[in-house]
């Protein structure tokens, strides 16, 4: 079976972002960019499916401007077979991206689409569930384990109360949580090899999908800053402060 994996180019998770002083957004000029961490888990899971003989081909797809191809190259260096770049200069919303991905699913006919549960830039946590809805496929979100047996996917997911196990009939959507696997680092020879792997670039406008924005960002603000407090010498002083100064314990 074919597996389709989505990857997004985002500000690296170690970068402390700055809000622009005019409130128009976040300053991402000259900031280190990386693959969204959850998407690394997605690519890794698809590669493991191929290595286990479950998947025959791993196709990665990214929506974004030309620089998204760098992120696709990273996925190819990890081991994906080929890539599709949906070129868009505009930042698109999850609903629009889900519609575009549905078109690609129609063309490629994968049995599984694996997406990160959320992107760490806009923290929406929507695209996988939306794509599942548009395709009328079952969804296994926030996955920490996925096992395939013929047309059945047994999926363990993380919930607020613990863990939950579902059985899904393929084709299906998986969204990944961080404990699904440990993503591999691309090795230098694989990075070289990835340069020769194909990236098919498609203009978003050519797909006949309405990608117009539904949300208008009116402004972006800094959150209130929390000031550091004091250091105390020992546990006894701490308990005393919590009891008599902060009054948060009895």
């Amino acid at each position, binding site marked *: 079976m074919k597996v389709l994996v989505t990857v997004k180019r985002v*500000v690296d998770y170690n970068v*402390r*972002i700055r*809000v622009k002083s005019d409130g128009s957004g*976040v300053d991402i000029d000259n900031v280190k960019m990386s693959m969204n961490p959850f998407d690394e888990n997605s690519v890794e899971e698809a590669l493991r499916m191929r290595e286990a003989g479950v998947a025959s081909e791993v196709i990665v797809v990214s929506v974004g401007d030309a620089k998204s191809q760098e992120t696709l190259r990273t996925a190819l260096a990890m081991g994906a077979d080929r890539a599709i770049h949906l070129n868009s200069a505009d930042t698109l*919303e*999850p*609903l629009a991206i889900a519609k575009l991905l549905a078109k690609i699913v129609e063309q490629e006919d994968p049995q599984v689409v694996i997406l990160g*549960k959320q992107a*760490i*830039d*806009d*923290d*929406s*946590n929507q695209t996988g*569930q*939306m*794509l*599942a*809805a*548009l395709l009328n496929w079952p*969804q296994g*979100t*926030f996955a920490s384990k996925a096992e395939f047996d013929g047309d059945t996917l047994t999926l363990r997911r*993380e*919930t*607020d*109360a*613990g*863990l*939950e*196990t*579902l*059985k899904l*009939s393929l084709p299906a959507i998986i969204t990944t*949580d*961080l*404990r699904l696997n440990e993503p591999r680092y691309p090795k230098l020879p694989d990075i070289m090899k990835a340069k020769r792997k194909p990236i098919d670039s498609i203009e978003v406008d050519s797909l006949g999908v309405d990608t117009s924005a*539904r*949300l*208008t*960002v*009116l*402004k*972006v603000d800094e959150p209130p800053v*929390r000031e*550091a*407090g*004091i*250091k*105390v*010498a020992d*546990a*006894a002083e*701490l308990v005393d*402060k*919590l009891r008599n100064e*902060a009054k*948060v*314990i009895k």
Partner: protein
Amino acid sequence: MSILVIAEHDNSHLNANTLNTVQAATQLGDDVHILIAGHQAADVVDAAKAVNGVSKVLHAEHASLADGLAENIAWLVKSLAGDYSHLLTSASNFGKNFMPRAAALLDVMQISDITAVISGDTFVRPIYAGNALQTVQSADSIKLITVRSTSFDAVASAGGAAEVLSLTFDQAYERIEFVSRDVTISERPDLTTAKTITSGGRGVGSKEDFALIEQLAEQLNAAVGASRAAVDAGYAPNDYQVGQTGKVVAPDLYIAIGISGAIQHLAGMKESKVIVAINKDEEAPIFGVADYGIVGDLFEVVPQMIEALQATD
């Protein structure tokens, strides 16, 4: 138009986050309804009826709604949406799972994890792990919203007298089956509603030593949390995780023990009223947000704290 709150529950208890979501709903309009979609959930319907400020409880009863499967709830929500201007649910794992699916069925762009209501179409939501706050205006005719519980005070769970309307729902998505649930059993209070939380990180070092965090929690009648590093290392179960991709908490007192304070962790706890940090590394970023810090070995400091608390009990 009316506002619909889709409640989280386990067929016997109404999740407390529903009270925070109702608070957000009352800021949007005064005719607030609650949907209880479940199986043999009469107790939950009774609890929902009593929620202050709610005029109607919609009750959908079917075996296909027993386990919170997004496929079925999204269908139900889609069938009801035409009567409402806004549909809200908690930005919990439950809400995050089904709400975007319902939004796509309705061709609506969901507004995730709101922390404030500005007007009927304008909301504030955190992005970049809460390091920026985005104010967005929606052009969709129906608004689908997930609500960050810690940003809205709970409404009273009693005092209401809503009428109950039974709905007919008999759809069951065929290509998914609920198999089992493995719930972490803890005698400690719920992490998302606790007044005090003791939370352990990588510095705790092992699953066995994590018992120390539990002991302190017991002394303080606190819930227990953990950083991602501690969960990844297997010291604590996944549902303990506090942070950008785990739970967001805002207790009166948050005690971070052996937690360095990565921005992803701070995203889940920096709205706590009082933060205490115990860490042997005085450069740890957690001290930058802590009201009280102790630079020291947690294996010395925490037992001393327990002793000091016992001594004056």
